[in-house]
């Protein structure tokens, strides 16, 4: 089946899969966003416990999505993996550190004799939510704005900046830094919106939810400010395109805007996604009693569609998905960074499992979330976090 596809079609297929995983990861960031609000929403021990436990039943899925995203990127676009991870060393190390401290925090937070104390583990959760979302958002923005590296004729990469990726977030002499940070902050506030919507769906406690409701619109407004700043800027800047025949890379005026015009289906997905994100927020914000618990699904699906479309925007239509600002010809495209055709075909058969995986995740989620979390349950449950 997959053997009959062209090499380019397989590269596009795998870019779509990596994009989908990236989109699902941003949706799953409701865990991270929720973590940054544990202390500002929970005023009593039991309220904090409810918040932590509602997130604690999902944290591992976010973690797994991140690991699978990394694995899929390694398998399908190894040159991106070696260039970005080996190059932007400090950015990725900070991201990894943020996830290391998250993994133990749920399980250890309330256990007796936990060495560091409950508040330390809660701080770990906050740091994970804060750093993880902002840094990953900032790193993804560089797909549009470019990074400082070169690739030699043996396909070995060299990062040109001694700051090892930190310059992408802190070099304020470049306008692109503001664009990068705007997406980082946009993802951060979106994750907080998603976290609030998830609480609406999974916790049954009027006081707590009313408090969360008050935070929804502020976070939504901040998300919109940063996201729109990012979106408008990338549509106006020169993008990194390549000639499909000679493979020569060049700066193309309004490249990403042109991609919107030239890929209308993707544009529809993007618009639909943005509308759904806003609709979910609107309904949960202004019709909380009737639709509050459904907001996570509407905004969540909108998030997946929006992020998916943004990834396609930067990877397809002869666009460099990981551009180099040091040497244009070193820029990575889905054609020059991908695995061999054989590997993509083999991996494509494995990808047929993805719908099955999504189906059992959905089933397990539904089974566990049939009953919302209550204060009483927290007092009774022997495996509460």
């Amino acid at each position: 089946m997959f053997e009959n596809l062209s090499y380019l079609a397989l590269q596009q297929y795998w870019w779509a899969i990596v994009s989908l995983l990236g989109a699902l990861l941003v949706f799953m960031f409701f865990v991270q966003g929720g973590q940054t609000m544990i202390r500002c929403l929970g005023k009593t021990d039991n309220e904090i416990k409810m918040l932590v436990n509602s997130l604690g039943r999902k944290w591992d899925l976010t973690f797994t999505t991140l690991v699978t995203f990394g694995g899929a990127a390694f398998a399908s676009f190894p040159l991106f993996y070696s260039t970005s991870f080996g190059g932007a060393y400090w950015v990725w190390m900070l991201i990894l550190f943020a996830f290391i401290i998250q993994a133990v925090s749920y399980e250890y937070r309330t256990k007796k004799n936990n060495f560091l104390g409950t508040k330390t583990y809660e701080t770990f959760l906050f740091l994970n939510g804060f750093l993880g979302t902002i840094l990953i958002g900032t790193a993804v923005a560089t797909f549009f704005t470019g990074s400082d590296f070169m690739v030699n004729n043996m396909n070995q990469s060299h990062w040109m900046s001694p700051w090892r990726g930190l310059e992408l977030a802190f070099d304020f002499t470049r306008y692109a830094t503001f664009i990068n940070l705007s997406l980082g902050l946009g993802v951060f506030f979106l994750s907080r919106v998603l976290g609030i919507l998830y609480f609406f769906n999974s916790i049954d406690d009027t006081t707590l939810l009313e408090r969360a409701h008050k935070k929804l619109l502020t976070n939504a407004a901040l998300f919109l400010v940063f996201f729109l700043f990012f979106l408008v800027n990338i549509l106006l800047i020169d993008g990194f395109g390549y000639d499909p025949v000679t493979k020569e890379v060049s700066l193309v005026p309004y490249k990403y805007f042109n991609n919107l015009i030239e890929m209308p289906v993707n544009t529809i997905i993007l618009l639909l996604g943005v509308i759904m994100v806003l609709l979910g927020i609107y309904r949960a914000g202004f019709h909380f009693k009737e639709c509050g618990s459904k907001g996570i699904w509407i905004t969540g699906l909108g998030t997946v569609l929006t992020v998916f479309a943004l990834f396609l925007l930067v990877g397809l239509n002869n666009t460099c998905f990981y551009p180099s600002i040091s040497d244009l010809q070193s820029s990575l495209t889905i054609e020059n960074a991908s695995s061999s055709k054989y590997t993509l075909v083999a991996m494509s058969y494995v990808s047929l499992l993805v719908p099955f995986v999504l189906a059992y995740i959905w089933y397990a989620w539904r089974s566990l979330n049939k009953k919302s979390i209550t204060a009483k349950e927290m007092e009774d449950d022997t495996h509460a976090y």
Partner: protein
Amino acid sequence: MEQFDLALIDWSRAQFALTAMYHWIFVPLTLGLSFIVAIMMTIYVKTGDELWKKITKFWMTLFGINFAIGVATGIILEFEFGTNWSNYSWFVGDIFGAPLAIEGIMAFFLESTFIAILFFGWGRVKPGFHLLSAWLVAIGSNLSALWILVANAWMQNPVGMQFNPDTARNEMLNFWDVLFSPTAINKFLHTISSGYVLSAVFVVGVSAWFLIKKRNVIFAKRSMVIGAVFGLLSSFYLILTGDESAREVFRTQPMKFAAMEGLYDGETNAPLVVIGLMKQLPDPQNPNLERFAFKLEIPNLLSYMAALNPNAFVPGIRDLIHGNEEHGLMSYYEKIEKGKIAIQALSEYKTALEAKDQATADENLKLFKANYAYFGYGYYDDPHSLIPHVPLTFYSFHLMVGLGMHFLILFIVILVLIFRKKIEKVRWVLYVALWTIPLAYIASQAGWIVAELGRQPWVVQDLMPTLSAVSNIDKGAVMTTFWIFAITFTVLLIAEIKIMVSQIVSQSKNEGGH
């Protein structure tokens, strides 16, 4: 191809070893305890006996504590291939990346989805679905081990691929050759069975402590039976797969095999050193050096175990370096020459292509292909650089094997005493069982040292040395992250041990367990 500062290579290796060894403290317990919990839960669901429910919940809690830190230390490993070994990531990414991605799709999602059901499903989902979740968590954990070990096995014995000079990387030719290579199968089976044995030792040891303290006796005895039976069956399997794994090493990594056995001069009818004390650090250039101050040998056994033939020739370190015409062994000197030819030919091939000189390119390509099997050797001038640390490999291997035998005997003794209803009376056995817990972890780490230190200096056997695989970053950055991870993991390990001990003590005082 690039070469890097030795200090950078050493720090990068140290960081990877640190994270891998920390990760490997927690993973074996996850692999086996997941099955032990599933078995206990199955008995509870079948019998409806509340004590089995308590037993299941207790071991499940310990499983959860251990699982969390295993996840924390695991994420860094996957991304370190990119952050610290970026040249490696490109050179082998076409093959190595696929198992990692499959691991995520097939195993991690299974594990992470159903672990939530396992922990929080009590009273929320039907008992049958809850039980199924326990088994799916166990299968998911072990499936994740399969894929990462397939990737690791490929590094030890690269098969199913060919080098593409245009992209300067190895590309997969046959997925099934990679998945079903004998190295991969043996590595997977031996590694997971070692995890099962460690978990069984853990369950038996903790239960023994309950009995020493005379607390929760029935609870402890039931746990001990499950642990010991599981451990006994796993031990037999561990020995069988270990035997086959060693033979596989003999076939594919003869230098590692020689280091494992401390064998400097090859011989037919080679004896097996059961116990040995090395006299001094090795010097392969001195043929008269006495290797052992003391040794206990079994005649012919090494030849038999290596090749199923007591008369077989087992090459030693010196045979591999200097070659052995009688037994058809090419010397490392010759391999280094061929490797240098391959590296030079690849470089000239690339230059000729850029100059559009197809004839020269073709000529160099031919030369390159003829010598590619020795590509990695070309990075070295001195063949002695290709010897792994012999004493460490030798002692780790023998310690692992000796402790493996100890575990087998322990499980048999425990089961006999339980069967004869004397387990509480023979207290020294209980103490031995308790103190065997750290020994299981030592054996497990020793196995890792044999596998990974024994393959040095290769990151991919014969093709890519560690010194050319590293990311070109400042060594100060790697030193900094090394210490950050060392401190973080140590703190988390202390937290884990304190929580585990606290949970065990708390359960032992829980009267409901009687």
